[in-house]
């Protein structure tokens, strides 16, 4: 079995990783220990923070005692073990603020300076591109970004080998790379990022080379990455959202003279795709490139933001999630699970088509990870189960309102004499609650905050998205009325009706009592067993034909 690596780059990459993490959360990557690297120029980026928080929760959920991050399981929630590494290129130090500074273009002999200026002026706008502050990322200047990212990674390798003052992000990168190097020809590396934005778009074409050169430098030339064997895949995610145009006032400040303008995203995407198609490095390094786009009108992600300020980055950049990101995660799933398609001399471009009606996409189970070997059913089973559990935690047990959440559920189990999970601490329960909040929804100061799945579903609306729309209430009264056993569109998958005095939920709890974790689920700790137990019960309740 190949060793899996995920690299998420830039804001979009982070959201794809979020989706990917949720795929892990619902249990799509059984028996896997996945190495994840987040890569950005902007260590404070909101999306990055959110996904890192999410993976942190994920790992805490799987952690028991000294078993940090737990172990890989199967057919259960949180089945994959995730190892997170974070790296960012540092433009905060003195002399690193802008291209002109970091390249030291005004130093050296006059001949050097002349040559450096000529070449820079030829390709990089002298007044803007060469001078904008880099600490908010590459601002859609992918031509500059690709060069800086490549050299940023190489620089880390040089720093590590020098050994002095190695920064933490460099150490994390080093550890990640150690794993990658160790995996050798068995490595499958999947990269999340967009091709229309800044950092991700900048990095996708250069990351394999950068990693290869990192290995070379780190090993003093004794090791490398063989692109003929190691399998690199990536999303080529084109524009699927827009945001407010920067106004002239914002552009007037020097620091903001270069701002990504989403109106050019399609154009940028097209230009970028042409580049990918013709670039021999991309063709050589990548086996599969998953092109995912959004051919219908995109929603503005900052719809309510009337300031006409584009958020260029930083902690405020927490863009809502979109189904395309989920599809990117699904692409990773495809890449990680497929057995063929790696033999072409140059990268293959893959895409997906989905039912389209009334100017909307209608997603069915099978649209995400395919329908071979009932994989669509398995996927929806797992997702549905997870969603149901989320509602059990957040809705039924008030987790979304900082009520007991999962702990409440455990109490309920205790009421049913199911006491083996009582040792799960309040704190552990809280982690699970928190995870579900990020996955589904929460309330903050009585304000509804959609979580990932809500956001994804929103991005499809008015199109169909797997579950009954009734499964997505967004106000307390609707939520109270929610019957968690009826989230699917197809009643076949509804939990069994309870009868006159017992609702479906009560019946489900009863079923829970009657099931147990199985050996093949490889669960060891109480938490794992608890989750596997619920997973099994939900699966039964949902009536998917998956065996």
């Amino acid at each position, binding site marked *: 079995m190949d060793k899996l690596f995920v690299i998420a780059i830039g804001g979009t990459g982070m959201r794809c990783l979020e989706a990917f993490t949720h795929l892990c959360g619902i249990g799509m990557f059984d028996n896997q220990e996945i190495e994840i690297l987040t890569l950005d120029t902007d260590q404070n980026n909101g999306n990055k923070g959110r996904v890192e928080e999410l993976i942190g929760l994920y790992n805490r959920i799987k952690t028991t005692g000294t078993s940090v991050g737990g172990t890989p399981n199967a057919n259960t929630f949180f089945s994959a073990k995730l190892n997170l590494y974070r790296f960012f290129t540092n433009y905060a130090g003195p002399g690193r603020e802008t291209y002109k500074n*970091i*390249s030291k273009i005004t130093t*050296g*002999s006059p001949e050097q300076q002349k*040559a*450096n200026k*000529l070449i820079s*002026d*030829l*390709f990089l*706008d002298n007044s*803007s591109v060469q001078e904008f502050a880099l600490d908010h990322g590459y601002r*859609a200047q*992918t*031509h500059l970004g*690709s*060069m*800086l990212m*490549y*050299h940023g990674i*190489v*620089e880390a390798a040089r720093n590590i080998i020098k050994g002095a003052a190695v920064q933490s992000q460099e150490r994390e990168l080093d550890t990640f790379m150690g794993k990658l190097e160790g995996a050798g020809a068995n490595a499958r590396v999947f990269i999340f990022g967009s*091709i*229309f934005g800044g950092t991700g*778009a900048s*990095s996708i074409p250069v990351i394999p080379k950068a990693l290869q*050169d990192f290995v070379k*430098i780190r090993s003093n030339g004794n090791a490398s990455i063989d692109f003929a064997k190691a399998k690199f895949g990536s999303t080529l995610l*084109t524009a699927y959202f827009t945001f407010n145009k920067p106004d002239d006032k914002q552009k007037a400040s020097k620091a903001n003279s270069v701002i990504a303008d989403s109106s*050019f995203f*399609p*154009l*940028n995407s*097209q*230009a*970028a*795709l*042409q*580049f990918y*198609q013709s670039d*021999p*490095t991309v*063709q050589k390094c990548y086996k599969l490139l*998953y*092109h*995912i*786009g*959004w*051919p219908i009108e995109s929603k503005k992600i900052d719809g309510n933001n009337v300031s006409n300020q584009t958020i260029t980055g930083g902690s405020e950049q927490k863009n809502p999630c979109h189904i*395309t990101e989920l599809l990117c995660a699904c692409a990773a799933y495809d890449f990680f699970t497929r057995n063929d398609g790696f033999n072409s001399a140059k990268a293959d*471009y*893959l*895409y997906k*088509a*989905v*039912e*389209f*009606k009334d100017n909307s996409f209608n997603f*069915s189970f099978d*649209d995400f990870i395919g329908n071979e070997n009932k994989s669509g059913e398995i996927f929806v089973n797992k997702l549905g189960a997870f969603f149901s559990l989320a509602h059990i935690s957040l809705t039924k047990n008030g987790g979304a309102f900082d009520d007991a959440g999962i702990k409440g559920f455990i109490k309920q189990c205790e009421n049913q004499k199911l006491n083996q999970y009582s040792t799960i601490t309040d704190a552990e329960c809280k982690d699970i609650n928190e995870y579900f909040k990020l996955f589904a929804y929460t309330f903050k100061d009585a304000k509804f905050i959609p979580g990932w799945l809500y956001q994804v579903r929103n991005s499809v609306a008015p199109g169909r998205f797997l579950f009954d729309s009734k499964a997505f209430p967004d106000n307390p009264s609707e939520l109270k009325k929610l019957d968690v056993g009826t989230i699917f569109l197809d009643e076949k998958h509804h939990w069994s009706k309870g009868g006159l005095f017992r609702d479906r939920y009560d019946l489900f709890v009863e079923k829970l009592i009657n099931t147990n974790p199985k050996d093949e689920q490889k669960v060891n700790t109480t938490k794992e067993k608890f989750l596997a137990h619920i997973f099994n019960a939900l699966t039964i309740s949902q009536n998917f034909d998956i065996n």
Partner: protein
Amino acid sequence: MSDKRIKALAIKVHPKTEPNGVEFAWDKIPQLEVFTKNILIPEIAVDQDGNSAVNIGTIVSGIPSVFARANLFKNAIDNIRDKDTEASGLMLFYKSLISEWKGLISCIALNYKDIEANRIHLSYSDGEHLNTTANIYEPTGAFGNMLFERKPLWCDQSLANNADRIPFIDVISFKGKVIGGTSPDSFVFTSVSYQIKEKFPFINVQNGKFIDPLQSEINHQELFTLYGYAKHILDNIERFRLNYASVEEQIRPEYGNISTCIQAWMNDMVIYQQTKGYPKLDKSTPPEVGSLFNYPFSLLFNYSTALFGSEGIIYNESKEGSILFDPKDLLLPDTTEIAQIDFGREGMETRNFLKTKPILLLAAETKGQLNSYAYFTLPLTPLALNVFGATLDALVGISESSNVKSRITAIYDPTDKDGERLIVQLKLYTETGNEIVKEVIYRITSESISGKDILMWPNFISKQWNRYFLYSEIPHNDAKFQATPFIGNVDDDFFRIVLDEKGIPLYLANNGKAAVISEKYGNIKAQLHIASNNAVADNKYKYEIYESNKPFKGVKFAHAGVDCGFGIIRYDGSGNTQALPVNMLNAPRTLSPAFLGVDFGSTNSSIAYFSDQRNEVCENLKLTNKRVSLLASDSKNNDERPAVEDEIFFFQNDEILTNSIKSVLTIHDSRRVVNDGNIQVNSLMAQAVKGGFPCFEKNLPIENAENNRYILGYNRIGRAELVYNMKWSTQQIDKSYKTAYLSTLLLHVYAQLFIEGHEPHTLKWSYPSSMGKELLSEYRGIWDSLKEISPIESQVKLKTFPPSDLSDIGDTSGSSSWGSPGTQSGGWGSQASAPVNATPAWGSTGTGNSGWGEQPKADVATGWGNEAKKTLTAVDIKTETGPVRFDFKKLSNEESLSEACAVANYLVRPNGGYSINPGELVLCFDIGGSTTDITALCQMEGGKAMIKQNSIRFAAERVAQATKFSPNFKNVLLRICEKKKISIQGLNSGTPKFNENTAPYYFEQVVDRLEASDFETFYLLIAAECKEMMSINLYVTGLIMFYAGQLAYKLRNEIVKSEDAPPAVKAIPPKIKIAFAGKGARIFDWFTAVNPAAADDYYTQMFIRGMGGEAVAKQTISPITTSPLKIIDINSQRGTDNADVKYEVSKGLAIPTNITSILVPTNKQAIEILGEDNFCVVTPNGEFKYLESTNSITPEMLEHIGNHFICLPQEGKPHCPRFMDFADLFYKVSSSMFGLKMNATDFMAGFQDMNIENYIKGEPDFIKAQKRKHDDQKDFDYVAPIIILEGMKFFEKHLLKGIQKQ
């Protein structure tokens, strides 16, 4: 498949190309390129030309490669196959990029001179690699890293496989701003953020970006060029592609789309041409981009027409003698500032003004002004100058008949907002009919070259000539404009410019010094004789004089040290254009031997030559103007204004006959004279040119004349100095000046003879027989040094002959033997007195006697005896004892001659000379400025013989000097100027400078300007207006005639006594023929003009008085004719209008003596006569041995004057009876005819004041002779007839004062 409609969850594409998709599965995108190309882009602001209002960088930024900008162009070319297809979004943008791409190529084609391509190697400057370099972000290295797999494509494919291949990019700049770069994919691409604000057809004025010029206005020439360039690129794509043949297939470029694109563009150009009605494009040639780009882009973008040119005919293939050139290298760079040359109003208004000018410049029409022209230095490179060579005149359009069709034309725009501009267009026509056009717009120097000239000399060039001179008022090292000459190669068939290895002409000077030219260029010697330097920085007038042994080809002009174009000297090989210097390089001349005779006089000099080929002496020799004025005109009318600086400090432009050369030397300010070898000043100043120039000018702005220097005053140069009266000077510096004068004069002569087909083989020079040995030796040295002057390339070495009698001149003591004078009687009646008597004034005072006899007694006796006795014992002065032994021999043809000897040779010349019969005695007086040389010829055993030669320091200058004292003389000069309508600076024009010092000068100036027919008028005017000058004239001429009589008597007696005389000669008293020669001979014309008969009578009577009276004369000579009675013949054989005046000596020198076979005495002592009574030698034993006035006088006698040789009138006898006899007649005639205001008392006072002994002792020549004897142990060599010395003293002390009374 489900019947549900599925849609690709992909970027929005055109519905036609949207992939169908496979339900639920990931599927490969079919036809990825088509898919991508058809991506639908929301509307962005793009105008119809595809120019996006937004920053294009936005699109660049989407491509995640730092080479995005370059990639876009490849994508554009690959995606846009048809410019007419509808396009939107990225495709529309690509269309605009293609337009931009075409614009960039157009910019290179049309403005390649502003383009620069810098190759940037994409590696770290510290030479380290990614893992070790100091700064991994350094752009050159970082960019190189980002090529990744494409790196091999961006490297130099020509490098060996084992070479360290480093990728590179050629960054293209336009006027210093980065505008693009080279790429192996799209050849070129534009940079990301350039902006050009100027207006060009290839620039979109809205955004400053390049556009296809077909979208704007492009003129036919530009279209022509562009088409040629596009075709050139297209034709070379395959070569360029092959360069990458060994590159890995995956990255190996293919250029099918670019070829298609360029071909389509060319088609568009043809349509444009047709629409505009422009000439067809099929003959177009690429622009001369040259080697702007390095390999491999050189294959596509470099173009140098390898053309071959020879004398303006341009071939596509090499021909013998043709020069390989690239048309772009013909015009000077557009950064050159061109100099304007101001030819004044005439130049401005005259079309083809330069047609007659000897310099090739560029004439331009003035923009916006009809028929107004301006002139500029040629903005052509030396290469171009050589390519066109002698057909440059055709190129600049002043020789329509030439078969050279190429032209350089210019428009002068004085009103351009950025300053004056010169728009120059060079149209080249190849032999095959191709037309190549270059246009450059030049700035013009802030000031013009105005009022300055460059002159050269001589006006011909020949392989047989090796001394060329150039006079420049624009010194090469001046602060503002500079002109530096360069030379042509005489060995080249086309006389091309001699260039150094870098193609730069060999300039003859640099930094104030003459250039030292390496021997590798052949034997080229340049000299800077006169330079403009710091020492004369304060002087407004700058000039320098070059000499080169190779002919000048042109001058480079510069302004403040920055070159600003050329002027090329226009030689004429056809001989059809008189105004131009003649190119004789391919017409060798046959030069016949010429035998030169040079008579250097104190006032005038004369030169004649004998042509061996014609076997005759030249009738006359005219030194014509051989100067070539390059920037002005040398037709300077000195009747209107005095000579300017260039007329005096260089070879002369006044054309003169060589019998009227003024012996005047203009000298340079010594600070200007270049002394390269640090030689002594005297040696320096003795050199030709450096030491100055003979001055032929007749109208000079004279300020003053003193100490043998004329001082001229000029506005610009200020003071200029002319040296005159050099001949007798013994000053060391004057020796230098004499040498310089003669050297430079000889150059004039060489040039003239060269034109007349002669080359001097020998040079004979003359000297007064009275000249001291020392001075004569000095002259011999001077003349010998002239052998080196020759500018002629030949085997002939000029032979200057030594003087015949240098060894024993002045030695009168040794071999002479005198017999006692015999008397012969004869009688021809008393008629001689008749004409004199006819003059009333004369008759009244009686004849022969005067009442002056008594007074002299008074001061004779005082104390003389005592002094004389003291030294008596020491000295035994020889007196003549026997007959003179002549020992005649034929005059050698290989010696220089005394002036007298030369005149003798002239007098006996065939065709016009004296026949010298046995009964004839010819006396010739060669009257110079300061000396009169006397020659006597008669028949002797063996032929015509010269029996007497000597000279006296009494000549025409006396008359000239007297003008100082003549109150009325100025009026005469003014009157004659008025009559002749001539203007003489200082006399009748400008500030009056006439004073007693300058009077002789103006006298000469006027005389020199008179034509033969004017003299009579002039003399009559003197007689009428300035009688006192007539008296002076009569005094000088009368004394000469009186002395002639004394000599004739003496000579006759010597002949009779001589053993060398045949009996036939002895038997008959000779008829006396008197000839006058020399410039001064004109003084004998004065009286004749007034009254010929009286004049003849006066001179005859003077002669008779000299002989000792009528009775003696009757015995001694025979009259010429008796009926009518003509006692002597005075100057009857002179030429018409005195044509030969002053030629006598030079011609006498030139005529080979083997033709005349004249005999001269072996014994060369001078027969000089005492000429006065009352002189005695005090013998050692104290006796007073009285000498007859007919006795000889020797230097020994004069050495002891006052001691052993004394004037001791016997009791009752007048002091100076012989002089008194002369003075008597003079007084009578001049007082009666010309109102001499002196009376008898004045005369008597003069006689009593004679004291001739003291006068002699005070004579400079006497003192010098004494000094030589004392200091140098040389023989005392001063001798002069007492009668003449008396005449000099009376003249100086009394007569000059006397005439002032008027």
